């Protein structure tokens, strides 16, 4: 046998984790955020159970402010793959008219964090897959693969259960739940390389294309629908832009780019800084502040 490559090893580890959850947990669900990490995680789940379908549904927490292309992609994927997709929207928030323009931080809390808690309580999920990686966020560097939440969905980082070998302890007390991160040991670079190797379809927003945008507070914001009001000093322009992370369109800044193929994106994402071809890997900022905020909100 030839030695496994590091992507082979990461793939096998993630599949092992996903299968453990399916075998031991009563009511698991996979969070699906439509982004590239979610796409990789879903791809791994499809592989883990082939020729069976994954024996758990997907859950998308919809803030109602996602890019249209994301929602189209989500619905098409779920149909294509034949997997049940739950969507949860915090109706209370919608009724109160909570939106990203007027409510800032409380928007994130109400439409993302609270919405997620509602969804989990409603369905009584005991294990929730998330696409979080240890290299993307400070507190995540120390989080276990199987991470426990108390009945209020809170994480106690100072009292984590020891996680030995790959003997994951899935036993929880009543009301508690687990977040499970099959991509814990993947880096941003691994994700992109795996997307290329496996030819995984991702939302077209990752690729550069001419799109209607305005410049706002130094960010390039896409005008995705007419809920976004354009200021008097703002001008809608058509620019060739792409998005490094995906979230709510008013909160997601695009970058001007010519990269419209996977290879060009990988080149741009991973090689951008280093002209002298040094491998630049501990890459805190690459994930982008928006995505990080989203993760913090989510988890």
């Amino acid at each position, binding site marked *: 046998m030839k030695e496994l490559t590091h992507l*082979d090893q990461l793939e096998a580890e993630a599949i092992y984790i996903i299968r453990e959850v*399916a*075998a031991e947990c009563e009511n698991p669900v996979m969070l699906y955020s439509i982004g590239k990490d979610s796409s990789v995680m879903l791809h791994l789940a499809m592989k883990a159970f*082939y020729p069976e379908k994954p024996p758990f549904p997907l859950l998308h927490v919809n803030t109602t402010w996602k890019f249209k292309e994301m929602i189209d992609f989500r619905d098409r994927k779920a149909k294509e793959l034949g997997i049940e997709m739950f969507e949860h929207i915090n109706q209370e928030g919608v009724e109160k008219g909570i939106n990203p323009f007027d409510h800032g931080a409380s928007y994130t809390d109400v439409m993302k964090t609270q919405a997620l808690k509602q969804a989990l309580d409603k369905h009584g999920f005991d294990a929730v897959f998330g696409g979080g990686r240890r290299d993307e966020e400070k507190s995540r*560097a120390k989080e276990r693969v199987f991470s426990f939440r108390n009945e209020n969905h809170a994480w106690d980082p*100072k009292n*984590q259960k020891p996680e030995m*070998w790959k003997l994951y302890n899935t036993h929880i007390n009543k009301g508690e739940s687990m977040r499970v991160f099959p991509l814990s040991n993947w880096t941003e670079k691994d994700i992109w390389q795996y997307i290329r190797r496996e030819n995984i379809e991702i939302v077209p927003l990752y690729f550069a294309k001419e799109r209607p945008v305005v410049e706002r507070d130094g960010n390039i914001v896409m005008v995705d629908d007419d809920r976004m009001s354009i200021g008097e000093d703002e001008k809608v322009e058509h620019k060739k832009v792409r998005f490094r992370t995906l979230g709510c369109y008013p909160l997601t800044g695009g970058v001007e780019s010519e990269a419209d193929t996977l290879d060009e994106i990988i080149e741009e994402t991973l090689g951008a800084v280093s002209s002298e071809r040094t491998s630049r890997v501990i890459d*805190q900022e690459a994930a982008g502040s928006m995505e990080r905020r989203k993760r913090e909100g989510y988890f």
Partner: protein
Amino acid sequence: MKGLLKFLTCGSVDDGKSTLIGHMLYDAKLLFADQEKALELDSKVGSRGGEIDYSLLLDGLMAEREQGITIDVAYRYFTSDNRSFIVADTPGHEEYTRNMAVGASFADLAVILVDATKGVIAQTKRHARICSLMGINHIVLAVNKMDLVDYDEARFNEIKQEFEQFTYNFNLESIQVIPVSATAGDNVTKLSENTPWYDGKPLLQYLEDIDVTDQMDEAAFTLPVQRVSRPSHQFRGFQGQVESGQINVGDEVITLPSKEKANVKSLLVSDQESGEAGIGQAVTVQLDREVDVSRGDVLTTNEELNVADKFTTTLLWMDGDELVEGRNYLVKLGTKTLPGTVMKIKHKIDINTGDDVPADKVYKNELVVCDIALSEKAVFDKFENNEALGGFILIDRVSNMTSAAGVVNHALRRSSNVVWQDTDITRPIRSQQKGQQPLTLWFTGLSGSGKSTLANEVEKRLVAHGHHTMLLDGDNVRHGLNQNLGFKEADRVENIRRIAEVSKLMNDAGLITLSSFISPYEGDRQNARDIIGESFIEIYVSTPLEVCEERDVKGLYQKARDGEIPNFTGVTSPYEAPQNPDIEVDTSQMSLDEATDYIVKQIQQQLA
């Protein structure tokens, strides 16, 4: 490009761990998110009169990352031109040994630092011992601060020898001792001119080149089954990760513990059809005939693999609650989870010296050698033969804590020699003859709650209805069967275990057993439930403490309040009320007759 290397770093902060890793990343240009950050860091590290403090590189990141969680293992990721690395950066303090062990169980190699001016200290030995226990076969000892001992070869050799002697029995596949200076950069990413006598590689190159793949691909094939996939009648696949050896389509495998033989009909490596599969791969195996295999079983080519129910183990105890003999846990071994009891604590191992220390209790972060009896036969191997089938965790059945990590030293032969004698007259026959379903009615509650009175009444009622019964009472049992037991914790656990076993024997005889014991701890009652099985019915006599104390039939509460009885349940030691009792009665709310009626009515269905 080589595969991933997972390694951990250990050693105390003073030994220069951060500086060493920081220097390695810096020199090899493996760090820096962007130029802005690089500049910012450069301005920091450059501020000490030209001397670069490389630890700032890592500590700067660490302070950001840790957010007050300084006690746990942190994972860092980097890639050189030749290899991808994951570093588990583990805490040094003795109190956090279990977190260090988490990092060690994750890694294939350990970089242990020592300070050349101090040499091998207790902590060095502790770390090396835990690494070895957790299955690390490759150790790099980085002898740091060589600049402070003038790159003295003799000093280096002295430390090298001491460490090699210490690890002589550790079964290591490789051990490399490298003289370094983390601050000056000697032998970190390039060979140093200051140590011409050192004939090995610099640290980074050593890590890039080392082959840590176990020789497990030459071993027999083992696949612990994670899951049975049955999407249709035509397809029945056994899913799991190959833990040793390799397999080809057409090969014969044995199923354990059912010991059937079958040939491999098809193989999926993740979702791809394949003719062969090897170690580390996620596979789905179809066999050419029906076999009795479910999660936790093993497909293998090794006929010698243990199928037994007892083994001797070395445990790292990780729970804040101490370990006592006789306690029952869930054992997760491979992909199998089953109840198991810690039968015999042989001795502790002094984590620093390695000496055997006699003990009957074990506390957090201690190493202990003990025997474990499983509730049924399972497939396992010595840890040194097969980590996946020899490593296990103990899960506390009440708190769900991961209480210990253990490695199987060897199976206990008795487990294959002492077999169940099958008898012709079975429990169903005995109970049929008596025209009843055997049950154990387990009365738990405070002293004076009315357990014994109630059990007595219920028994009378059952006998009047023509049932065959036996009553076991706490006080009475202590005069006979358990007269050699006291009231300390280990004795209390054993007391309940024996009563549960006797109750079960009575059930086997076809009798309805009424057992009346305070049994204040959830864990002990859970243990009894496990032993007795489906026949166990928990009756919680929930009479409030004030009422029990007012009754004080035996004058015990008064004595306890006067300090004459230590550890008296309800007064000086806790009573853990059952969360989901099968039946609950409060004798301060119901008359004796009402309570008896209620219980008999509740069990009516099971009796039929």
